[in-house]
């Protein structure tokens, strides 16, 4: 039951990742995916295996990892913006095939 919101969130994230043209929006979609996975872990832990806390700890670490990923991605996007004055992914397609 509680898996439905997290899977909807994940689906929204995948959809946003594929359709969005702005790199910041893509990053937000990625965050949505990572956070939905966190919900998944917490739900499984709380309702199926309440005796241990594996899922909770995994979630804590996953949040930290997601924060690190955002920091690196933002830094790289800023770098791209400095070069092309734009964060549209259609502008960074010089290398193909």
């Amino acid at each position, binding site marked *: 039951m509680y898996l439905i919101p997290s899977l909807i969130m*994940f689906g929204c*994230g995948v959809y946003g*990742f594929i359709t969005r043209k702005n*790199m910041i929006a*893509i*990053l937000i979609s*990625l965050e949505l*995916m*990572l956070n*939905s*996975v966190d919900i*998944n*872990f917490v739900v*499984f*832990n709380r309702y*199926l*295996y309440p005796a*241990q806390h*594996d*899922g909770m*700890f*995994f979630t804590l*670490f*996953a949040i930290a*990892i997601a924060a*690190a*990923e955002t920091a*690196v*991605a933002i*830094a*790289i*996007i800023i*770098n*791209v913006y400095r*070069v*092309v004055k734009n964060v549209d*992914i259609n502008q*960074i397609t*010089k*290398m*193909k*095939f």
Partner: protein
Amino acid sequence: MDYSQFLMMPQEIGLLLVFLLVFLYDTFMPSSTQKGLPLFATVVFGIFMILGFMPVSDGFAFGEMFESNKATWAMKNILNIGVFIVLLQSIKWANSDFVSVRRGEFYELILLTLFGMYLMISGRHFLIFVIGLETASLPLATLAAFEKRYYESHEAAAKYVLTAVFSSAIMLLGLSFVYGLTGTLYFSEIASSIVGDNSLLLIVALAFVISGVGYKLSLVPFHLWTADVYQGAPTMVTSYLSVISKGSAAFAFFVIMVQVFGAAYSHIWEWMLYAIIVITITVGNLFAIRQRNLKRFLAFSSISQAGYIMLGVIAANAVGMASMMYYILVYIFSNLAAFGVIAVIERQTGKVTTDDYNGLFKTNPWLAFVMMLAMFSLGGIPPFAGFFSKFFIFVGACSTGNVAVYALVLIALINTIISLYYYLLVVKAMFIRQDECVIPTLKSHWTEKAGLIICTMGIVLIGLISCFYTSLSDITAALNIFPG
């Protein structure tokens, strides 16, 4: 807490010490001595690499979250050799005008990613594995953006970081399903609780986990980042990405597939992997034929090589593991030789396409010779190590005795012949074709020469000296992680 557990991880602690030394040198030494930092880092890492060959004790640490055994020890040493060659070849590049401001960061990030790969190899709990995977992949994105003056470097980094986070999210979703199914994240406990499990959730979880790790390995449906990132990133980072990152991911993939999901081998993931191998080898080869940029060309060649490495995983036994580790060792030497030559030529002339290499033999006979050896070894021509590694990996795949896997080996053999065509195109350009604007005679730095000499020795000798393969197969034969 029992602090003696840290003695189980001597290589990790040694690597952290190397990292700290480099970091302190970078931070506190006066700027007049900063030019010596690359050499300092290489020498300290070389000492660490030699000390790493001391045998370690087998066992677990931290409540079985971390395992140290002969196989992880051997794999870490193989990676150390590769990293040492990369560091050696990057000294001159790191001291060049545009990079020298940030040269300390290059070495620190390389050492940190190596630490993450150690955790991937030794972790026996999915939390440790995920932390290791992210530690190994996030700093690589910043390394790909290292050449700030080139636009391509930024594009490569943006593509790499967005797809890397996407793939790790997919893999984490798969892991959450595994957790929901078994209630644990320990490798050993998952392995025992999925025996006889045939549920749809397990299949979905496995597909997600395979795609997450397959991204790191650049297997085919998940390979689209490879060529762009390899082309845009600085050549030193590309060589690091193509051998070290791929080798560690292959070993971790073997452990996950065989040790954790070994019970699901015959009815779930053998056929997933079968299909992936067939398209990986074929697509990698066919796209490599039409590449003119050598870095892109080697990217597609490394995709098809990853398919060959996966032949060891589909065998899922001790022979497969030994041949996979041997293949990675040989692949490190061959690919680093090719990238070393490309780096020398790119640093001094900026030329990276096949047509630029026309008539290279006339002006730079030694560089052309090393490149030829590397191409022969990658293509698998007999006296060189690449032939033996391909031979052993085919033997490993055939050792399952499964008729379908024989067919897979036949497909791989046919693809080896296709790959000879494009590898020999480079050799043909260097030795036979003529050009009026040929690359002038270059003078390479002694560190680059030393790196290329080590690679050449490896290519020529590792195949002929049989003790490498026999010691690896002795190590893996002693493990008891294999199903059936």
